[in-house]
């Protein structure tokens, strides 16, 4: 039963998040097309959000909203950790803002006459 015991020990959200981070990082470094770099950046950012939220995952507990399912008296025994959720909420919105800014730079470079591959901007290298 080693496989099941191993699966019981790791955090499944952190594992998938970590692999997504690696996939996205490879995409940012290795693809030459400007827009594909932005797509890989978006995948990387989803992975990072998963990793941050995996800290607050507690098995078998419900959402941190006080209602008939979990009222104020039993709150701390039946709810997941709300602090990483607040942090990831902020991170997702800022990720959208940064992606939009990155894409508007890419569009501006294209309409200014540049090429679509990052290799064609070589004369700006130092």
């Amino acid at each position, binding site marked *: 039963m080693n496989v099941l015991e191993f*699966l*019981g020990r790791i955090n*499944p*959200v952190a*594992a*998938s998040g970590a*692999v*997504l981070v690696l*996939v*996205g990082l*490879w*995409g940012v470094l290795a*693809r030459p*097309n400007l*827009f*594909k770099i*932005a*797509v*890989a950046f*978006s*995948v990387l950012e*989803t*992975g990072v*959000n*998963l990793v941050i*939220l995996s800290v*607050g*995952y*507690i*098995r*078998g*507990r*419900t*959402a*941190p*909203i006080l209602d008939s399912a979990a009222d104020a008296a039993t709150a701390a025994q039946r*709810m*997941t950790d709300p602090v990483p*959720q607040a942090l*990831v*909420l902020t991170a*997702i*919105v800022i*990720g*959208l803002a940064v*992606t*939009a800014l990155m*894409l*508007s730079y*890419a*569009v501006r470079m*294209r*309409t200014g*006459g540049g090429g*679509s591959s990052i290799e064609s901007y070589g004369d700006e290298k130092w």
Partner: protein
Amino acid sequence: MVVDMAILVSGVVMIAAGIGAVLAKSLLVSIILSGGVSLVASLVFLLMGAPDVAMTEAAIGSGLTTVVFLYAMARSKQADHEDAEANAEAGGQP
């Protein structure tokens, strides 16, 4: 235990979609697959007991980000089109 299995299966789907998004030849396929990654991530957030984050990720990650990418791709194609027209005009009148 069931929830953990569901999260693991969704994780595998996410990773497959992520690898597809990074390796695809066509830009449109990459964009749609990255929207798919965000959608499955939103499902994982819901399974973990974080409905606020799931709503935000579904609306922003697989809604607005995909639309922003598609607009940018359309502008880029239009820039190509205009360049080709300008070249054709300049070539026609040396």
